């Protein structure tokens, strides 16, 4: 199983010009994220999720991104590295203001610790075509009236408004 150090080593290979940064605020620090400064003065916020990134995690993720922007006073690019993504998550996150790049952890059979964890950048299309179907019992019993995954019933602007609403509501509850 990948550890954070494995991921850090892999990321340093992917972004050779980026240098590690200290976290400006201890409250933003956790065991599965780290910060890099890219060559252009921006901040790369690398968040590692060793399970499937679900829709329920989106709100917290966006809230944290906003906090990081406030503390660093500079544009932030999210580098999200996850074992897998729930359908629809990447489409939603691709609509927000913060640029986010998605990576998937691929396990290889190589015994070497560094190369045993491959990190591949993926697009939402690639994720949807290869990810497993979500089939929890909860979803078969309770489903919204609109068809699942028919995101195109709402325009991008409408979706953006509702994502912002989720984010703002999460702040209000906190």
């Amino acid at each position, binding site marked *: 199983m990948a550890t954070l150090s494995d991921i850090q080593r892999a990321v340093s290979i992917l972004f050779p010009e980026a240098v590690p940064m200290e976290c400006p605020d201890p409250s933003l620090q956790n065991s599965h994220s780290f910060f890099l400064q890219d060559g252009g003065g921006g901040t790369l916020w690398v968040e590692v999720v060793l399970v499937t990134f679900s829709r329920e995690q989106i709100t917290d993720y966006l809230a944290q991104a906003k906090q990081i922007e406030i503390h660093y006073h500079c544009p932030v690019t999210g580098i999200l590295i996850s074992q897998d993504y729930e359908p629809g998550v990447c489409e939603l996150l691709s609509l927000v203001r913060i640029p986010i790049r998605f990576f998937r952890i691929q396990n290889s059979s190589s015994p070497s610790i560094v190369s045993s964890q491959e990190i591949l950048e993926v697009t939402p299309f690639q994720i949807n075509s290869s990810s497993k179907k979500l089939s929890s019992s909860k979803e078969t019993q309770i489903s919204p009236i609109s068809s699942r995954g028919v995101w195109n019933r709402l325009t991008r602007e409408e979706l953006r408004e509702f994502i912002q609403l*989720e984010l703002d509501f999460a702040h209000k509850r906190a």
Partner: protein
Amino acid sequence: MEISKGPEKKLKRGLQDISPLFQSTAPVITQNSQNISHVIASPPVLFDVQFVSVCVPDHAGDSFLANARLASEIVRRTDLSTHLVSIVPGVNALRVKSQAAFPAFEFLNPRIARLTLSHQELWSFSREGPMRLDSKNGIQPFLAFLEFEPAQFRSLARIAMLLDRVILYVLPDPMSLREAYRLVKNLWSYNPEIEYELLFRTKAPTQKQEEFLFERFSLIVSRFLGLCPDWLGDLPFQNKNDFPLDSSGNTMGFDPEPLLSAEGLQRPLSPEKSRFWLELQNRFRKRSFHER
């Protein structure tokens, strides 16, 4: 009865006039630390004919319960008798046989009569013969809850044309509001005259959170669809005894006044609504006579 829907109506129901919702004349909205402060008489009923539907956009299968819940709350607070019209697929000529899945007519309580119709029967109402409007005897307020599951309809167009108001019975969270918005957008594409009300089916931890959600939802709906939804407060779906009641036994926090007013109702009635209303009146009168 003509009701104009000019800019003054929108201003009145815009966000800057949200205060009447919190100063509702519905039975008791404030209480002191010990008990209920006062009881107000039942709100006046001002409409003539109204077709309403309570929709649960984030949870399929609860349409009947939601509409019955609201109908029971309305009859508890007013002198109205209400009608619940369940529209279901696949129940047509077979209903006349003894193998009907459920009764076509029943009283849920002495003041809520339920009629079950198939899709085919519903559509046939709008093609009935010439209208026979009898305005000489005046119009008794007629409130019908049209209960249906949108997922079972191939097209919502026909039923959308019959609706005056849609109550979005949702959880106080953004995901539910997004599903509500989808439904609103769908119905709005068929009938832009429908009025929408938001009603939370559980309480948020604080009143401020509910206000926040309604205001933002209202902003989004207003911006993209040009609509001005009202807010009816919150009405628990289950475990209603866990929620504070006033001395009349009514659930606090629910304001039915927007439903009882004629504001926003399009008049005169469209031909489809007129025929539907007449046919329903005939059906309910005949069945009431036999059932009683």
